[in-house]
Protein backbone atom coordinates (compact mmCIF):
# COMPACT_ATOMS: atom_id res chain seq x y z
CA UNK A 1 0.00 0.00 0.00
CA UNK A 2 2.81 2.33 0.98
CA UNK A 3 4.78 1.39 -2.17
CA UNK A 4 1.76 2.14 -4.42
CA UNK A 5 1.35 5.53 -2.75
CA UNK A 6 5.03 6.34 -3.40
CA UNK A 7 4.68 5.31 -7.06
CA UNK A 8 1.71 7.65 -7.52
CA UNK A 9 3.65 10.48 -5.94
CA UNK A 10 6.60 9.83 -8.21
CA UNK A 11 4.52 10.16 -11.41
CA UNK A 12 5.50 13.03 -13.68
CA UNK A 13 2.75 15.43 -14.73
CA UNK A 14 2.16 16.29 -18.42
CA UNK A 15 3.55 19.78 -17.94
CA UNK A 16 6.68 18.44 -16.30
CA UNK A 17 7.10 15.85 -19.04
CA UNK A 18 6.73 18.54 -21.73
CA UNK A 19 9.34 20.65 -19.94
CA UNK A 20 11.71 17.69 -19.77
CA UNK A 21 11.27 16.88 -23.46
CA UNK A 22 11.92 20.43 -24.59
CA UNK A 23 15.16 20.59 -26.62
CA UNK A 24 17.90 22.30 -24.66
CA UNK A 25 20.06 24.91 -26.33
CA UNK A 26 23.67 24.17 -25.50
CA UNK A 27 24.97 27.53 -26.65
CA UNK A 28 22.81 30.60 -26.37
CA UNK A 29 24.23 33.58 -28.22
CA UNK A 30 23.28 37.13 -27.38
CA UNK A 31 23.54 40.17 -29.67
CA UNK A 32 26.53 42.53 -29.91
CA UNK A 33 24.40 45.43 -28.61
CA UNK A 34 23.41 43.54 -25.47
CA UNK A 35 26.94 42.30 -24.81
CA UNK A 36 28.62 45.68 -25.36
CA UNK A 37 26.09 47.33 -23.04
CA UNK A 38 27.86 45.57 -20.15
CA UNK A 39 31.36 46.54 -21.34
CA UNK A 40 33.33 49.76 -21.19
CA UNK A 41 33.52 51.96 -24.34
CA UNK A 42 37.25 51.26 -24.58
CA UNK A 43 36.59 47.52 -24.61
CA UNK A 44 34.28 48.05 -27.55
CA UNK A 45 36.93 50.14 -29.36
CA UNK A 46 39.76 47.65 -28.80
CA UNK A 47 37.51 44.76 -29.73
CA UNK A 48 36.50 46.34 -33.04
CA UNK A 49 40.12 47.27 -33.71
CA UNK A 50 41.53 43.79 -33.08
CA UNK A 51 38.73 42.16 -35.08
CA UNK A 52 39.28 44.48 -38.02
CA UNK A 53 43.08 44.14 -37.99
CA UNK A 54 42.88 40.38 -37.49
CA UNK A 55 40.46 39.97 -40.40
CA UNK A 56 42.67 42.19 -42.60
CA UNK A 57 45.81 40.24 -41.67
CA UNK A 58 44.25 36.82 -42.26
CA UNK A 59 42.55 38.04 -45.45
CA UNK A 60 45.84 39.39 -46.82
CA UNK A 61 47.46 36.01 -46.22
CA UNK A 62 44.57 34.18 -47.92
CA UNK A 63 44.97 36.19 -51.14
CA UNK A 64 48.74 35.68 -51.09
CA UNK A 65 49.63 39.34 -50.44
CA UNK A 66 51.99 38.39 -47.59
CA UNK A 67 53.77 35.52 -49.36
CA UNK A 68 56.99 37.44 -50.00
CA UNK A 69 57.09 38.94 -46.52
CA UNK A 70 56.86 35.83 -44.36
CA UNK A 71 59.65 33.35 -43.54
CA UNK A 72 58.95 31.11 -46.55
CA UNK A 73 59.24 34.11 -48.86
CA UNK A 74 62.88 34.40 -47.81
CA UNK A 75 63.77 30.75 -47.22
CA UNK A 76 61.46 28.98 -49.74
CA UNK A 77 61.22 26.04 -47.34
CA UNK A 78 58.02 24.03 -47.65
CA UNK A 79 57.89 23.64 -43.85
CA UNK A 80 57.89 27.41 -43.41
CA UNK A 81 54.95 27.72 -45.80
CA UNK A 82 52.97 25.03 -43.98
CA UNK A 83 53.86 26.59 -40.63
CA UNK A 84 52.61 30.03 -41.72
CA UNK A 85 49.42 28.56 -43.15
CA UNK A 86 48.70 26.71 -39.91
CA UNK A 87 49.39 29.83 -37.85
CA UNK A 88 47.07 31.99 -39.94
CA UNK A 89 44.34 29.36 -39.71
CA UNK A 90 44.91 29.37 -35.93
CA UNK A 91 44.59 33.16 -35.99
CA UNK A 92 41.28 32.92 -37.82
CA UNK A 93 40.03 30.31 -35.33
CA UNK A 94 41.12 32.55 -32.41
CA UNK A 95 39.14 35.43 -33.89
CA UNK A 96 36.05 33.24 -34.28
CA UNK A 97 36.38 31.86 -30.73
CA UNK A 98 36.65 35.36 -29.24
CA UNK A 99 33.45 36.46 -31.01
CA UNK A 100 31.54 33.32 -30.00
CA UNK A 101 32.83 33.66 -26.42
CA UNK A 102 31.73 37.29 -26.29
CA UNK A 103 28.27 36.57 -27.69
CA UNK A 104 27.87 33.61 -25.34
CA UNK A 105 28.44 35.99 -22.43
CA UNK A 106 31.57 34.21 -21.23
CA UNK A 107 34.35 35.86 -19.25
CA UNK A 108 37.12 36.34 -21.77
CA UNK A 109 40.12 37.01 -19.54
CA UNK A 110 41.59 33.50 -19.61
CA UNK A 111 40.88 33.20 -23.33
CA UNK A 112 42.78 36.44 -23.98
CA UNK A 113 45.68 35.20 -21.84
CA UNK A 114 45.86 31.96 -23.83
CA UNK A 115 45.93 33.93 -27.07
CA UNK A 116 48.65 36.22 -25.71
CA UNK A 117 50.69 33.09 -24.93
CA UNK A 118 50.17 31.75 -28.45
CA UNK A 119 50.90 35.06 -30.17
CA UNK A 120 54.04 35.57 -28.09
CA UNK A 121 55.25 32.12 -29.09
CA UNK A 122 54.46 32.88 -32.75
CA UNK A 123 56.21 36.27 -32.52
CA UNK A 124 59.37 34.84 -30.91
CA UNK A 125 59.70 31.82 -33.19
CA UNK A 126 58.74 33.83 -36.30
CA UNK A 127 61.27 36.56 -35.53
CA UNK A 128 64.01 34.03 -34.78
CA UNK A 129 63.26 32.33 -38.10
CA UNK A 130 63.65 35.66 -39.89
CA UNK A 131 66.82 36.54 -37.97
CA UNK A 132 68.37 33.26 -39.11
CA UNK A 133 67.63 34.24 -42.72
CA UNK A 134 70.26 36.69 -43.94
CA UNK A 135 67.98 38.53 -46.38
CA UNK A 136 65.33 39.37 -43.83
CA UNK A 137 67.62 40.59 -41.06
CA UNK A 138 69.36 42.94 -43.50
CA UNK A 139 66.07 44.72 -44.11
CA UNK A 140 65.42 46.64 -40.86
CA UNK A 141 62.22 48.27 -42.19
CA UNK A 142 60.68 44.91 -42.91
CA UNK A 143 61.76 43.47 -39.55
CA UNK A 144 60.41 46.53 -37.74
CA UNK A 145 57.02 46.34 -39.44
CA UNK A 146 56.80 42.57 -38.88
CA UNK A 147 57.54 42.83 -35.15
CA UNK A 148 55.26 45.89 -34.77
CA UNK A 149 52.26 44.16 -36.35
CA UNK A 150 52.70 41.07 -34.19
CA UNK A 151 53.25 43.15 -31.05
CA UNK A 152 50.17 45.26 -31.80
CA UNK A 153 47.90 42.23 -31.47
CA UNK A 154 49.52 41.29 -28.14
CA UNK A 155 49.18 44.87 -26.90
CA UNK A 156 45.51 45.02 -27.92
CA UNK A 157 44.83 41.76 -26.10
CA UNK A 158 46.51 43.12 -22.96
CA UNK A 159 44.36 46.23 -23.17
CA UNK A 160 41.28 44.07 -23.66
CA UNK A 161 42.12 42.14 -20.47
CA UNK A 162 42.32 45.44 -18.57
CA UNK A 163 39.00 46.60 -20.00
CA UNK A 164 37.38 43.22 -19.30
CA UNK A 165 38.33 43.59 -15.63
CA UNK A 166 37.00 47.15 -15.58
CA UNK A 167 33.77 46.00 -17.20
CA UNK A 168 33.24 43.42 -14.47
CA UNK A 169 33.88 46.00 -11.74
CA UNK A 170 31.47 48.39 -13.44
CA UNK A 171 28.82 45.65 -13.66
CA UNK A 172 29.17 44.91 -9.93
CA UNK A 173 28.83 48.60 -9.13
CA UNK A 174 25.68 48.84 -11.26
CA UNK A 175 24.22 45.79 -9.52
CA UNK A 176 24.96 47.27 -6.10
CA UNK A 177 23.09 50.46 -7.04
Amino acid at each position, binding site marked *: MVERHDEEKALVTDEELDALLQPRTVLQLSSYEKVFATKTPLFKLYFYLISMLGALYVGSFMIGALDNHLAFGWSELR*EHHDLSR*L*RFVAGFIMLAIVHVGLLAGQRLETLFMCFIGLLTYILV*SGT*SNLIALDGAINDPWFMGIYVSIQSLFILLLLLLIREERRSIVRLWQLQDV
Partner: protein
Amino acid sequence: MNKKLLDAPTGTYRFCEVIVVVFILLATVHTLLLRQLGGPALTTEDALFLSQTLMGHRAWLTMALGLFYAYCRITAKDCSQLLTVSCVLAWFIFIEDTLALDNVLFVPEMLSGQLTQFSRPFLLVALTYMAVESRRRRSDG
Protein backbone atom coordinates in the same frame (compact mmCIF):
# COMPACT_ATOMS: atom_id res chain seq x y z
CA MET B 1 56.08 24.72 4.80
CA ASN B 2 52.96 26.46 3.53
CA LYS B 3 49.80 24.60 4.57
CA LYS B 4 47.97 25.43 1.37
CA LEU B 5 50.76 23.86 -0.63
CA LEU B 6 50.56 20.62 1.34
CA ASP B 7 46.76 20.47 1.17
CA ALA B 8 46.40 21.44 -2.45
CA PRO B 9 46.87 18.61 -4.93
CA THR B 10 45.26 15.20 -5.22
CA GLY B 11 47.25 12.04 -5.95
CA THR B 12 46.39 12.15 -9.65
CA TYR B 13 47.42 15.79 -9.84
CA ARG B 14 50.80 14.98 -8.29
CA PHE B 15 51.24 12.10 -10.72
CA CYS B 16 50.54 14.48 -13.61
CA GLU B 17 53.11 16.89 -12.21
CA VAL B 18 55.68 14.09 -12.29
CA ILE B 19 54.85 13.41 -15.95
CA VAL B 20 55.29 17.10 -16.79
CA VAL B 21 58.64 17.30 -14.96
CA VAL B 22 59.89 14.15 -16.72
CA PHE B 23 58.87 15.59 -20.09
CA ILE B 24 60.60 18.92 -19.42
CA LEU B 25 63.80 17.08 -18.50
CA LEU B 26 63.61 14.85 -21.57
CA ALA B 27 62.89 17.77 -23.92
CA THR B 28 65.78 19.79 -22.48
CA VAL B 29 68.24 16.91 -22.75
CA HIS B 30 67.10 16.16 -26.29
CA THR B 31 67.51 19.79 -27.34
CA LEU B 32 70.99 19.98 -25.83
CA LEU B 33 72.01 16.74 -27.56
CA LEU B 34 70.66 17.99 -30.88
CA ARG B 35 72.56 21.23 -30.46
CA GLN B 36 75.77 19.29 -29.88
CA LEU B 37 75.29 16.66 -32.59
CA GLY B 38 73.40 18.92 -35.06
CA GLY B 39 74.59 17.96 -38.51
CA PRO B 40 75.09 14.20 -38.10
CA ALA B 41 71.79 13.71 -36.27
CA LEU B 42 69.60 15.79 -38.57
CA THR B 43 69.78 14.32 -42.02
CA THR B 44 68.23 17.10 -44.14
CA GLU B 45 69.21 20.77 -44.53
CA ASP B 46 65.64 21.87 -43.75
CA ALA B 47 65.58 19.88 -40.53
CA LEU B 48 68.92 21.34 -39.48
CA PHE B 49 67.77 24.90 -40.13
CA LEU B 50 64.40 24.44 -38.42
CA SER B 51 66.00 22.76 -35.42
CA GLN B 52 68.38 25.69 -34.99
CA THR B 53 65.58 28.27 -35.07
CA LEU B 54 62.72 26.44 -33.41
CA MET B 55 63.96 23.90 -30.89
CA GLY B 56 66.09 26.23 -28.82
CA HIS B 57 63.19 28.64 -28.26
CA ARG B 58 60.85 25.84 -27.41
CA ALA B 59 63.26 24.50 -24.80
CA TRP B 60 63.59 27.99 -23.26
CA LEU B 61 59.82 28.42 -23.29
CA THR B 62 59.25 25.02 -21.66
CA MET B 63 61.82 25.70 -18.95
CA ALA B 64 60.51 29.22 -18.29
CA LEU B 65 56.93 27.99 -17.91
CA GLY B 66 58.12 25.10 -15.74
CA LEU B 67 60.06 27.41 -13.45
CA PHE B 68 57.16 29.87 -13.21
CA TYR B 69 54.86 26.99 -12.28
CA ALA B 70 57.31 25.79 -9.63
CA TYR B 71 57.42 29.31 -8.20
CA CYS B 72 53.60 29.49 -8.10
CA ARG B 73 53.38 26.10 -6.38
CA ILE B 74 56.03 26.91 -3.78
CA THR B 75 54.46 30.25 -2.93
CA ALA B 76 50.95 28.67 -3.06
CA LYS B 77 49.76 31.13 -5.70
CA ASP B 78 46.89 30.35 -8.06
CA CYS B 79 48.38 28.70 -11.14
CA SER B 80 45.19 27.81 -13.01
CA GLN B 81 45.65 30.48 -15.66
CA LEU B 82 49.30 29.61 -16.15
CA LEU B 83 48.33 25.96 -16.61
CA THR B 84 45.58 26.86 -19.09
CA VAL B 85 47.97 28.95 -21.17
CA SER B 86 50.64 26.21 -21.03
CA CYS B 87 48.10 23.59 -22.04
CA VAL B 88 46.94 25.62 -25.06
CA LEU B 89 50.57 26.21 -26.08
CA ALA B 90 51.47 22.52 -25.73
CA TRP B 91 48.54 21.49 -27.93
CA PHE B 92 49.32 24.18 -30.49
CA ILE B 93 52.97 23.15 -30.76
CA PHE B 94 51.94 19.50 -31.02
CA ILE B 95 49.53 20.30 -33.89
CA GLU B 96 52.21 22.46 -35.53
CA ASP B 97 54.74 19.61 -35.40
CA THR B 98 52.30 17.02 -36.67
CA LEU B 99 50.56 18.96 -39.43
CA ALA B 100 53.06 21.57 -40.60
CA LEU B 101 56.48 20.21 -39.77
CA ASP B 102 55.77 16.50 -40.49
CA ASN B 103 57.81 15.66 -37.39
CA VAL B 104 60.93 16.95 -39.16
CA LEU B 105 62.49 17.67 -35.77
CA PHE B 106 62.01 14.07 -34.59
CA VAL B 107 65.23 12.09 -34.74
CA PRO B 108 64.40 8.38 -34.43
CA GLU B 109 68.09 7.43 -34.15
CA MET B 110 68.38 9.20 -30.81
CA LEU B 111 66.95 7.61 -27.67
CA SER B 112 66.21 11.03 -26.18
CA GLY B 113 64.16 11.88 -29.31
CA GLN B 114 62.19 8.65 -29.09
CA LEU B 115 61.50 9.16 -25.39
CA THR B 116 60.43 12.79 -25.89
CA GLN B 117 58.10 11.85 -28.72
CA PHE B 118 56.71 8.89 -26.77
CA SER B 119 56.04 10.94 -23.64
CA ARG B 120 54.35 13.80 -25.52
CA PRO B 121 50.78 12.39 -25.48
CA PHE B 122 51.18 11.77 -21.75
CA LEU B 123 52.28 15.38 -21.29
CA LEU B 124 49.23 16.67 -23.21
CA VAL B 125 46.81 14.56 -21.18
CA ALA B 126 48.56 15.43 -17.90
CA LEU B 127 48.61 19.17 -18.63
CA THR B 128 44.97 19.17 -19.70
CA TYR B 129 43.99 17.36 -16.50
CA MET B 130 46.02 19.77 -14.37
CA ALA B 131 44.47 22.81 -16.08
CA VAL B 132 40.92 21.51 -15.67
CA GLU B 133 41.53 20.42 -12.07
CA SER B 134 43.12 23.71 -11.05
CA ARG B 135 40.25 25.69 -12.59
CA ARG B 136 37.73 23.47 -10.83
CA ARG B 137 39.50 23.98 -7.52
CA ARG B 138 39.59 27.73 -8.09
CA SER B 139 35.87 27.92 -8.87
CA ASP B 140 35.12 25.75 -5.81
CA GLY B 141 36.97 28.36 -3.79
